[in-house]
């Protein structure tokens, strides 16, 4: 085969942040295959130095506009861990509910606005407004639910202001929680319609498998999103767990010569984080309705197809709705009431981890005796996925070449692969700067 291919996707569209895909094939031989990240650096870890512990989460939430709830939660949890704060059971449940809201909200945004256009063969959601009005309006209606669900707990969803160390600064009323519960029941027809929409285009999802290691938070009692321990599942199904405090030895950040975006690895050359990683690790603890959907879609763990990450997100959409109804029943059953903030008992170092839509997120901070931050460290899911994306692309390009795909088809296949990861590049390069020559 003497194929020449030159792909240069500069600032890949329909992803959060800036990334490039560069492929050079000369006479059928791959000379260059890179996933590049030219996002501007922002230096958050240095910015939190000297800030009071009550301010830190409001700084680090600004790492990402899509997962700012998750950054706030990871930050507040790390601070609480450093300050010896044990939150109440009500706080734990309300935070679990806002975590569900973020995953629902972000997954709907990703499935409908970022992934669906490829499956409908249009460049963006806007051409669908006249041709598939009902689908677009449904997407916006579900997005609105996710936003109002999160805002009820967080005050707002982009940089929530009510989640603070020790608990919540303000509470929803029981009446508001009851209305939310009813809305989560009423959304079922929209979910059913979403499943039908996905089924109608499911054959457009490429079949490509590359077994890898999958990392996610894991718990014995629930499908871990707000809390749990670090776990990975290997391609042979072997699972291992570590405490969150050991996050550095599980992520092993390193620099590579061809990119200044930090990469991570654990046991294998790379690992994947995100909805598919959670699905592969924690399938057994999904809500029965979510499992039923997975069965309908013939989707079961272990799944090695990264394009299926979007389908795992859909399964999680159902899980988050159902599990929030369960949590609301518990909170309302006990009576939701404002609580005093739990006060610090020490000032030390602490770590916190949550599952954001794109995967496992770690925050760590140190505090001096006055509660002032001495430094921080954040390890972001997309950062953890960069190496896995690169290795996927390296495995995928030869397959597409062997199938005699033309340049346009290869480009689309590669773009769709990167989009499937739902990368959040502002996040992953929250302090990195990369300059690439075109």
């Amino acid at each position, binding site marked *: 085969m003497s194929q020449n291919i030159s792909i240069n996707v500069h*600032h890949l*569209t*329909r*992803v*959060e*942040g*800036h990334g490039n895909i560069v492929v050079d094939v000369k006479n059928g031989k791959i000379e260059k295959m890179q996933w590049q990240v030219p*996002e*501007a*650096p*922002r*230096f958050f*870890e*240095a*910015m939190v*130095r*000297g*800030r*009071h512990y009550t*301010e830190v989460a*409001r*700084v680090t939430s*600004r*790492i*990402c*506009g*899509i997962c*700012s709830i998750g950054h706030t939660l990871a930050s507040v949890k790390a601070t609480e861990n450093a300050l010896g704060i044990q939150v109440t059971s009500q706080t734990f449940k309300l935070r679990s509910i806002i975590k569900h809201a973020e995953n629902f909200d972000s997954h709907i*945004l990703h499935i409908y606005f*970022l992934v669906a*256009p490829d499956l409908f063969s249009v*460049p*963006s*959601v*806007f051409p669908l*407004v006249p041709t598939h009005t009902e689908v*677009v*309006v449904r997407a*916006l*209606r579900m*997005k*609105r639910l996710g*936003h109002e669900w999160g805002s009820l707990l967080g*005050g*707002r969803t*982009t*940089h929530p*202001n*009510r989640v*603070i160390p020790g608990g919540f*600064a*303000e509470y929803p009323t029981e009446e508001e929680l009851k209305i939310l519960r009813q809305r989560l029941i009423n959304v079922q027809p929209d979910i059913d319609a979403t499943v039908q929409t996905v089924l109608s285009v499911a054959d457009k999802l490429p079949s490509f498998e590359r077994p890898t290691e999958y990392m996610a938070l894991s718990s014995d009692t629930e499908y871990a999103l707000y809390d749990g321990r670090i776990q990975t599942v290997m391609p042979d199904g072997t699972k291992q767990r570590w405490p969150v405090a050991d996050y550095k030895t599980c992520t092993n950040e390193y620099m590579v010569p061809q990119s*200044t975006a930090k990469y991570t690895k654990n046991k294998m050359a790379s690992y994947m984080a995100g909805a598919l990683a959670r699905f592969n690790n924690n399938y057994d603890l999904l809500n029965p309705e979510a499992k039923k959907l997975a069965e309908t879609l013939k989707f079961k763990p272990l799944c090695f197809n990264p394009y299926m990450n979007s389908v795992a997100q859909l399964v999680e959409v159902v899980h988050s709705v159902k599990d929030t109804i369960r949590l609301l029943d518990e909170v309302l059953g006990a009576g939701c009431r404002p609580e005093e903030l739990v006060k610090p008992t020490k000032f030390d170092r602490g770590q916190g981890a949550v599952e954001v839509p794109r995967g496992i997120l770690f925050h760590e901070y140190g505090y001096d005796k*006055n509660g002032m931050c001495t430094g921080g460290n954040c390890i972001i899911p997309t950062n953890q996925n960069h190496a896995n994306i690169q290795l996927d692309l390296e495995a995928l390009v030869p397959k597409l070449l062997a199938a005699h795909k033309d340049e346009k088809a290869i480009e689309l296949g590669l773009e769709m692969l990167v989009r499937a990861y739902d990368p959040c590049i*502002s996040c992953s390069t929250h*302090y*990195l*700067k*990369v*300059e690439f020559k075109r």
Partner: protein
Amino acid sequence: MSTKRKVKVAFFDFSCCEGCQVELTNLSDPIFVGLLDHIEFVEFREVMKERTTEPIDIAFIEGSFTRESDRARLENIRKRASIVIAYGACAATAGINAMKNHTADYREFVYGKDASMPQLDSQKALPVSAAIKVDYALHGCPMDRAEFVRVVSHLLHGKEPVIPNYPVCVECKMRETVCRYDLDDHCLGLVARAGCGAPCPADGIPCEACRGFWDHPNEEAIEEILKSKGKLSPERARDKTRMFTSTMRRDA
């Protein structure tokens, strides 16, 4: 602008979290679909593959100007657009990105031994107006959705947009929020630009001036009040306005 032709709108992003773009998807279905009757998105990388070389009526620029290499891209947007709007705090004032501006060692702190790698060079974070002429600013972190709709509506009707220029305290009084200083807390509402409706004090946290200072902030007085009424240490009182208003301080 003619009502027959849809107004061509584009979004561009620089150094930021892109949360202000996400806020557009939170406008709710009737408002978003309603807007599409009047405007046409011609470029919006986060949600569109389409790009344009045609003139743009309104360009919204999100994010701060943090490196010289971005200047040409900004100048190109300015050349193509009739109206340029700094979209959100990062673009309007450099916002949270400027928190590091007064320090010299942030690279070493984050990178350690790798700090001298040439690609890690980064300038101070500056507002977009440091590189190109900006016609209007949508303030806030995130920007306020109602204000976005209002400003777009004003421009569609050929009206001069009105951006509030008075302190957040005014809005707390209007919604009858108890002052943070009366609850043993502190607050920057006295010097912060209003227009958000003061949601933070109402939600139990201090205003940190994410919309920047209003035009006449008394910096000496706020530092004094943070110490005497807010009980902040002298260092905290001095640094409190570095969160979102670093580039607006007298010492910037």
